């Protein structure tokens, strides 16, 4: 076999694998879209794209007076946006200290917390509930945001620290000689260079609250404070009346913007993650 033919064959094989993967990836997604267009409530009635499809569920989400969908959407945007913003600030500051300064606990603190976080603490949600009540943040988006921001620190700070370690120290030393203070170095030198990894942190912390329904179900009491994941989950969490079709409609509306953001940030995602995660 000539090398050229062999190469062509190989290439065909590679494309075949990609085609196969595309089918596997898209099949459930297309199926879900079909489901959301299904006028009934039940999952199992019809074919992939229903014959008498309708936008009734989408219409319900936005126009029905009982629907809180728009409020949930707004809440989720607030929670996710704030969680992303504060996570970036908090994490970059912590990572900067860990990367550039010597202090008590520097060598093992991050790993200790990373490991502590591996303990599952589901039953301790009760404790978080009582604690939030104690500080008056129960049933508030603020309380929820604080928990998200706090619990993301170990992993993300570790990731960002790994990235910062790859930025040559000569840069900040030179700046210091020019009279720059701690904060100037951080703000003017480190932050601009750390953009890719900070984009990753922002993205991660935007997504986690968006998709989480367990914590909000404990912390948030009133339907007008629900986030979108919790609200959607309640559609299908009822004993006798599952509303799967409505659930898929609501889920698709949140999945599309998220997917778009992911795909746009793809470049950052790959470069940031690689540099951060590999030097930890």
């Amino acid at each position, binding site marked *: 076999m000539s090398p050229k033919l062999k190469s062509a064959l190989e290439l065909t094989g590679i494309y075949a694998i990609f085609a196969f993967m595309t089918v596997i990836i898209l099949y459930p997604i297309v199926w879900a879209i079909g489901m959301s267009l299904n006028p009934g*409530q*039940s*999952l199992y009635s019809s074919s992939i794209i229903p014959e008498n499809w309708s936008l009734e569920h989408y219409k319900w989400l936005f126009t029905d007076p*009982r629907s809180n969908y728009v409020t949930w959407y707004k809440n989720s945007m607030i929670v996710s946006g704030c969680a992303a913003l504060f996570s970036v600030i908090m994490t970059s500051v912590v990572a900067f200290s860990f990367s550039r300064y010597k202090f008590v606990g520097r060598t093992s603190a991050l790993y200790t917390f990373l490991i502590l976080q591996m303990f599952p603490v589901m039953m301790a949600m009760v404790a978080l509930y009582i604690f939030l009540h104690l500080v008056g943040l*129960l049933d508030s988006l603020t309380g929820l945001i604080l928990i998200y921001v706090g619990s993301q620190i170990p992993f993300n700070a570790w990731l960002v620290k790994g990235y910062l370690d790859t930025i040559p120290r000569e840069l900040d030393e030179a700046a210091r000689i020019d009279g720059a203070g701690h904060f100037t170095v951080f703000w003017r030198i480190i932050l601009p260079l750390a953009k890719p990894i900070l984009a990753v942190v922002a993205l991660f912390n935007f997504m986690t609250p968006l998709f989480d329904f367990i914590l909000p179900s404990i912390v948030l009491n009133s339907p007008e404070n629900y986030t979108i994941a919790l609200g959607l989950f*309640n559609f299908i969490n*009822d*004993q*006798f009346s599952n509303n*799967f079709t409505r659930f898929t409609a609501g889920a698709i509306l949140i999945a599309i913007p998220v997917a778009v953001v992911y795909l746009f940030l793809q470049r950052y995602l790959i470069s940031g993650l690689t540099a951060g995660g590999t030097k930890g």
Partner: protein
Amino acid sequence: MFKEKTLWGLLSMAMFVLLLAACAPEREGVEEATDNNEGSEGTEESQEQEKPEELVVWINDEDIAEDISVEMFEKYTEETGIEISYKRVALPDQVEELALAGPTGDGPDLFFQPQDSLGDVIAQGLALPIDYSQEEIDGFTEEAINAFTYDGDIYGAPVAVETYFAYYNKDIIDSVPETIDEVFDMSKEVTDASNDQYGFLVSPEFYYLYSFMNAYGGYVFGEEDGVYDPTDIGLDNEGAVEGLTKYQEFISEGLMPKTLTVDVLDGLFTEGKVGMVFSGPWNMPIYKEALGDSVATAPLPKMNGEIAPSFIGVKSWLVSYYSDQPEWAEDIAKFMTNDENSQAYFDVTGELPPKPEILDAVDDPMYAGYTEQVPQGTPMPNIPQMAQVWDMDVAIELINNDADVEEALTDTVQNIKDNMDVSGGLSGEE
């Protein structure tokens, strides 16, 4: 030196702990901090409570429940001037959320539960008994009051009595099969599984299949003078085995799919593909809308010579232990279950209130199955050990997958007993 230090440290620690344990007079601080006991103490201190400005009620997370409740709340506000704020909380979540939110003051004054969770509520002490006069008691059916009686106290204002019965599609079967054997024959005739066409479907859950077991002599807990004995479980006796063997024939003959869920069952029935199903009043409006006049109801078919018994559930309003105004909570509970409002509840939801007068007056043929089935039912036990009994679903899943019925039941019941034991349910509560 170091040892000495440690010793001193330990000693002072021990002293401190002892001091702490001894110093309970901090109780006032406790009361303030936990902020939860005003309700219960208030009751003892003053019989007449001041009229509160607002009461909080948790209703079921259903549109229809909201509609009817809002209507009643408005009437109540008009009569008494007390504002009602309500929140939709799914029934299965209410107990857990109450336990969490009650002590912080974020809980309701009144909540809504079926009687099978009463045991859980009582075990945790989350509800206060309701004070009923004999006259008020007589207004309800005996079963309804019994369902919410625990240790001699009545804990609920009964709203609706629920059970399941047979729905059938007149387009598929012309006459209702009277016995389970007739159902079987009919099913053999009608079923065409490859086209999703079925003669008879019942959701493979203990709740529904208890009928098969109970008809032949299976029972949940032994009962004496209205007191359940959690150590005596009759779900693996001969009768239970016989009943479920009958059920298993439907599966093994391919007359019912193995992984049926209520979702699928409702979907198929409303599409007009099933002759007969067991289901409850909550589906009446849905089935009617989908099938129109083709749908009718009947009591369950006869098993072992009599109409098969079904589980009876009663749904009630309960007064929260954490309520600041338990008397007013009781007042609105009674208001919402008075004759007029019970009738209104029935008109809107189609669920039957446990009031003899209303039950007798129902003449809609659609309710024939419902009203005839209710007297045949057995109430769901209301002791907390019932929570473990729902694990019977495991046995049913196994039976659906061709397991030996007797073996599956014996194993599962043993498991349930073990689970009751390890969760403290058999060791005597007090």
